[in-house]
């Protein structure tokens, strides 16, 4: 049923076009519907406000039975993002369910920005600062928000 995933991704895209999300944009590459590029805007009135973060979503023919592989292309300093951009988020891993669509995935990642889970850190430095030294943490986040404009 390799067409299932592609047809579903077309519908994911239609939804994004019709409803116009706040806070992110996403679209597949012209020549490959399994590969999507997304941009998440840092949530307003948080330390992430103003940040523009690029992501890559790699789907397989098994979508939506299997989650896409999602990585940040923009360098980001966050307790739940590995330095290579991989994201540690339950719904993309052991709690994945076919009930999530592109919209739900990006909404979750966006809210993860300002609501990290330091108990399961992917970036232990970020997690440690988040728990123990908020001032330095804010500074580091601010830096990565500024750098995201240049990217």
């Amino acid at each position: 049923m390799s067409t299932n995933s592609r047809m579903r991704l077309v519908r994911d895209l239609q939804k994004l076009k019709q409803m116009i999300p706040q806070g992110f944009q996403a679209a597949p590459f012209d020549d490959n519907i399994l590969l999507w590029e997304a941009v998440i805007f840092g949530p307003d009135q948080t330390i992430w406000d103003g940040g523009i973060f690029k992501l890559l979503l790699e789907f397989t023919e098994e979508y939506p039975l299997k989650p896409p592989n999602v990585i940040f292309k923009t360098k980001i300093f966050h307790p739940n993002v590995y330095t290579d951009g991989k994201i540690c988020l339950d719904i993309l891993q052991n709690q994945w369910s076919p009930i999530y669509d592109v919209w739900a995935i990006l909404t979750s990642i966006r809210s993860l920005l300002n609501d990290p889970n330091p108990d399961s850190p992917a970036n232990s430095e970020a997690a440690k600062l988040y728990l123990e030294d908020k001032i330095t943490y804010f500074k580091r986040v601010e830096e990565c928000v500024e750098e995201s404009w240049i990217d």
Partner: protein
Amino acid sequence: MSQQSSNQYAYDQELYEQHIKQLDNIKNEIEAQDPFIITQPIELQILESEYLENQGFLQKIQKIRESYPYFRRVRRDGSCFYRAVLFRIFEQIIQFKDQQLLNKFSTIIANSKTDLTAVGYEQIVIDDFYDEIMKQIKLCPNNITVQGIVDAFCNKVTSDYLIMYMRMLTSGYIKANSFLFEGYIETGTVELFCQQEVDPIDREADQIQIIALQNYLQIPIRIFYLDGNVATFDATIFQIPEDANPNSIFINLLYRPGHYDILYPK
């Protein structure tokens, strides 16, 4: 949706990747052990050979098989309850050309889309799963054989789509009737419970899920519970609902800790 990760193990990437590999290995092992998804009916007696050392199980199996001599094995992948229930409904409809059950079931499924969107499911998310189950229902009772439905269930993708819809119905019912379940959910909200324990494709069904799906489908379920207690010869039977008409069609399941198979009466 919660962003709280329960991945307590994800302290570094290497460890995390090791863990994912381990989980994949376990899944592969299960698939290698259980090459079937659903077997043909086999004699329940066969199960005795697996419990020669367990007198409590053994004597209960011997007692059960006096009235329920056959069972179908269902793959142990966390979805056995959902799979057993749905398969048994289709089988009953096809085997006995049970028009009454077909009408009841197809009406429930046809109306379910509205129920799911009412609790917040997206149409685009439901459609593929709904279409798959409707496709199978439309073949019933005359355009598909029992073997045909076994084959559909043994196709991994078809099977996953069908079972996912059962999970959605279960989740949907729990969310729509959260007042019934809140008291039984130990930690977190009903939403979180569904996210963690119902929606993911390999999560086992426990009492809450069983009651929710039964309530939604309105087809009585009888579960024969095997345990190691040597003082009892009869398996404990859970019947849902408790006051079901004894003459109605039952889905009979054999429960061993962590697993459900389908039982067949004489």
